């Protein structure tokens, strides 16, 4: 049919045009994000992540849309949540509120620590998923005497937040190398030097941050894995339905000459 040839030409033209613009666009700034492991289906990892979250993050950050009892979705009983994760005097059906007073937080850090409920969803971008960003961010703190907190970060330069997990990771110093790219000398991250050891080895630290980030990703949308599971069944059903409606259509249309 005529239309098909015409449509093909349009599609070919489009692909070419979009290819050109996308090609011209592939550039950016800042440190490249590492790929975060996805452990949102790994209950042990999520539980470990929840523990780290409650112990380290929840002091200053809230997760004001996340209820404690939703943690039953990652394989914990309500009793376990009460015994191990309810550090404040909150009730199990309440949402996760920070221990810190927001006004004090503002005075100490210059900004209110953002709510973390959907942080993993909001930080996604051209560099990768929100989890990738958080995974990179939590692993690129370094000592910087010029900052009020004494810490700086490569993924979020001039961050107001100190390195809360420094006991676990220890102190590190980034090593840069000067490389000439496109005729300009540029600083490229070569690696890290461990200045003071932490209680964890670098490998253990990365694994724990992976767990924490997976937890944040899960908390951003607790229904995400249910959604995918249901989606498979929905699509299977629609596939069968389409088969029937296709044949039904053909059965009627065979009369049309």
């Amino acid at each position, binding site marked *: 049919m005529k239309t098909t040839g015409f449509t093909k*030409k349009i599609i070919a033209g489009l692909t070419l045009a979009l290819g050109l*613009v996308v090609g011209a666009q592939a550039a950016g700034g800042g440190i490249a994000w590492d790929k975060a492991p996805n452990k949102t289906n790994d209950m042990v990892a999520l539980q470990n992540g929840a523990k780290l979250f409650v112990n380290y993050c929840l002091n200053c950050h809230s997760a004001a849309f996340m*209820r404690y009892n939703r943690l039953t979705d990652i394989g914990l009983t309500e009793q376990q949540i009460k015994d191990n994760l309810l550090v404040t005097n909150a009730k199990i059906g309440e949402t996760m509120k920070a221990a810190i007073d927001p006004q004090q937080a503002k005075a100490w850090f210059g900004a209110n620590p*953002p709510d973390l409920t959907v942080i993993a969803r909001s930080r996604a971008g051209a560099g990768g998923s929100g989890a990738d960003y958080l995974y990179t961010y939590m692993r690129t703190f370094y000592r910087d005497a010029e900052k009020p907190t004494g810490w700086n970060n490569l993924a979020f330069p001039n961050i107001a937040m100190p390195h809360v997990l420094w006991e676990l990771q220890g102190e590190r110093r980034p090593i840069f190398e000067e490389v000439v790219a496109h005729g300009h000398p540029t600083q490229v991250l070569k690696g890290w030097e461990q200045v003071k050891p932490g209680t964890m080895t670098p490998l253990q630290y990365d694994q724990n941050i992976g767990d924490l980030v997976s937890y944040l990703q899960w908390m951003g949308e607790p229904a995400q894995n249910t*959604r*995918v599971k249901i989606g*498979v069944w929905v*699509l299977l059903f629609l596939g069968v339905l389409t088969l029937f409606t296709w044949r*039904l259509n053909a059965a009627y*249309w065979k009369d049309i000459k």
Partner: protein
Amino acid sequence: MADYHEVSPNAPAGEKLLNWVDNRFPASKLFKEHMSEYYAPKNFNFFYIFGSLSLLVLVIQIVTGIFLVMHYKPDAALAFGSVEYIMRDVPWGWLIRYMHSTGASAFFIVVYLHMFRGLMYGSYRKPRELIWLFGCGIFLALMAEAFMGYLLPWGQMSYWGAQVIVNLFAAIPFVGPDLALLIRGDFVVGDATLNRFFSFHVIAVPLVLLGLVVAHIIALHEVGSNNPDGIEIKAKKDAQGRPLDGIPFHPYYSVHDIFAVSVFLMVFSAIVFFAPEMGGYFLEYNNFVPADPFQTPLHIAPVWYFTPFYSMLRAVTTEMMYALIACVLLGAILAVLKGKMPTLFKVLIVGAAAGLIAMMLSIDAKFWGVVAMGGGVVILFFLPWLDNSPVKSIRYRPDWHKYLYAVFIVDFLVLGYLGILPVSDLSSRISQLGTLFYFGFFLLMPWWSRLGKSKPVPDRVTFTPH
């Protein structure tokens, strides 16, 4: 009024009931007129399913919208949290919300394809001008609906997108600032804005939308559907007065549509269940940050379906104004030299052009950007009177017309793509060219659509049985 119709007392209960209803309400009559005895051309192709699909998406949006309103709070302090409450604590709330957010984008996809179909096959040509006008009205209402709905989640993009767009109205001379104030209900986007947008989004605009959809379909069923060949099937009828190339909508196109609906639902569900954010295009990442009036995001872009028109807005810079003034000047000179009209008309044209140029020189480019953005939509309304081609369908037009249409589509998509990106020198130049092409395509259509040798149009539609 129809005569009272009796059925045999021995008739089955169903038939008796239908007869009872038919004597009081034209149920069977309506079904016949709009379904079983509505004759549609038998040569519809793939592009003809998007009308039915937009009706389906409208129903999805209304039904999911009803359930969302049960839990949503139109309050600047509570809105963001209530959406997260729907996503987390309301049983199946995430599904309803994702259906609604995916539905918004799906609506524009099917409507753009539906309009593209009309453009290709001349579905707006006589006697279908009113169908097209109602359709353009639907498109405009849909844009208003989407824009106001986008504020409701009260995220950063919701807030700043609304701030930017409402501020555009302030660029209108004299009434602008007051108009912007009236729309916002406050000096910045705030709780009052959220409440009125909510009201418009759930009541006012949907009512208009539904009314226009009904008018669109009534007008369509009055004149009958166009087809890919652009032939009037009513010109060739059989002894019973049925079009030879027509087939009853029901059952042929109803089964067709059911098939199309099931395929569409597969794509729709794949997005809802596996990629509801659609890479940040259907749900923007920055909109997961609650609205903060004190922190302007680095990059504010409207949702993808507005970006072609947003590009036109950004294309009109002070520099671009000189190009536009040159266009007006050139147009007036051409009209005076080449136009076959009385001298009085020519004088009027020169006067109007001089007035327009004076305004273009004295009013800020930002205002003309708003005019370009609005004009990009409004110009569609005039399409039936811009097209002078002797044939309706692209199939029988000169080949170079096809290429011109293809360039137009590419242009529209490139404008859309550039509208997502931050402005750069290169993208600004491309979108300026794209905007000139977009308007040139329509404004020069009365001239170019007449040119070239069209191919002979057959008497009967082209159809291969399948």
